[in-house]
């Protein structure tokens, strides 16, 4: 419900032409197998890498990736280009599925939680975002996060790849809660600034 309010309150302007990805996703509605294969070839590597990093085992990772791409094929109408670019939507769905697998969540819980997380969340990419190809983007993100102090990097990774909360991370790292909060926030702000500067 909350995210409906979200949408009513804020809907990003899409003043750009439809992206190639959004066009491919639209073709899925017409059962275009070629469009699906293009999207799979383009993004299966990053999706699988992310999922494998979270679940740590190739078998369950492939199951999650299969689930993600079948969801894309069967429910492509769920993606709304007006709410943001395709890749963050896909990666958010993959991360949520992988974390659910990691936490052994029941299907009922998964359905309830993912509905709001994936379908109605708005994502706004900065203008420079479209200028980066996947390889350059990966290099920049790794380089920028590599510049953070090891504990700060670890805190961010625990949050992103293991889905831990601030207090869970503080317990895991045996550091004060306030320190962990600052590490994560400052680390992400440095990443944001770094991506902007590098563009």
């Amino acid at each position, binding site marked *: 419900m*909350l995210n409906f*309010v*979200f949408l009513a*309150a*804020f809907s*990003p302007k899409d003043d750009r032409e439809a992206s190639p990805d959004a066009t491919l996703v639209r073709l899925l509605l017409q*059962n*275009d*197998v070629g469009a699906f*294969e293009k999207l*799979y070839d383009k993004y*299966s*590597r*990053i999706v*699988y*890498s*992310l999922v*494998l*990093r979270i679940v740590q085992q190739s078998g369950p*990772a*492939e199951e999650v*990736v*299969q*689930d993600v791409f*079948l969801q894309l*094929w*069967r429910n492509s109408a769920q993606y709304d280009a007006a709410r*943001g*670019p395709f890749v*963050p939507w896909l*990666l958010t769905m993959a*991360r949520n599925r992988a974390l659910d697998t990691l*936490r*052994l969540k*029941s*299907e009922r819980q998964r359905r309830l939680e993912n509905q709001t997380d994936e379908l109605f969340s*708005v994502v*706004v990419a*900065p203008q420079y*975002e479209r200028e980066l190809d996947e390889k350059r*983007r*990966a290099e920049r*993100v*790794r380089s920028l*996060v590599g510049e953070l102090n090891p504990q700060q990097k670890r805190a*961010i*990774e625990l*949050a*992103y*790849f293991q889905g831990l*909360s*601030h207090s869970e991370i503080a317990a895991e790292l045996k550091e004060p809660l306030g320190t962990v*909060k600052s590490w*994560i*926030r400052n680390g*992400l*702000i440095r*990443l*944001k600034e770094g*991506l902007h500067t590098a563009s």
Partner: protein
Amino acid sequence: MSNCDQFREMYEAYALGALDPPERAALEAHLATGCAECAKAIAEARWLVTQLAYLAPEAAASDMLKGRLMQTVRSEAKSSSPVAIGDKTTTTSHIPYWLSAGIAALLLLTLYFAWDVRRLKQELLAANEQNQRNEQLVASTESERTATQQKLAAMEEQMAKMHRETAILTDPTSVKITLAAQKIQAPQMVAMWHAKYGIVLTGQKVPMPSGNHVLQLWLIPKAPGGKPMPSMTVRPDANGNFVLLVTNPPASGTETKALAITEEPAGGSAAPTTTPKWVGAMS
């Protein structure tokens, strides 16, 4: 200080899913008032957070996964308005006695698990209360609580699996497929296929596959020239019994002509490497 000031430091953590429940609730309550400024900042933070995916070491999924997906997608594209299996005029055949006994056992197990889950939840509650009562014992009760939570989550998952198996085995719309042994002395296997919940394949006194080989299920498409679609693998227990749940078959029942079982190396194969040992036509 505007209302938004107190939330500015939370945007990134919210997008990351790292806020603890009280902070998350406070921020969501604020967003529910329709604050466009915070909503925009969080939308931007969401994009930033997805960039962290690129920290994962690069890895590639097997070609088998792509093969499986493309076969599914192609067959679904061909039948743009697939008919659910349950819509067929043929419905469940008579369930044999041994399978009925299996269902009854499954239901009993489900009841047991439900009772055990309730017991674990009570333990969890007790651990939480103990935690509050005695701060000196926080460390030990915390570990007990975590262990109980993990056990609870695993049992809930197990229960969900059993619920699904029970639904497939008992739903009147499930279609029964009998797989007869081919050129070997072995009992038949039985598969029940439900349009929504998937396939349950059961075997009893099945000969053990050689070495570390496994039995792999294949879906044989109706389409002329269609290649067998790989599905899941299983290794029977010491008595030759198994129950295999396939939650997401690579094709629908209407597109499938038959099910087949082959013996394959551990991990399964993208295409059959041996001739089928069991085959069953869709009714």
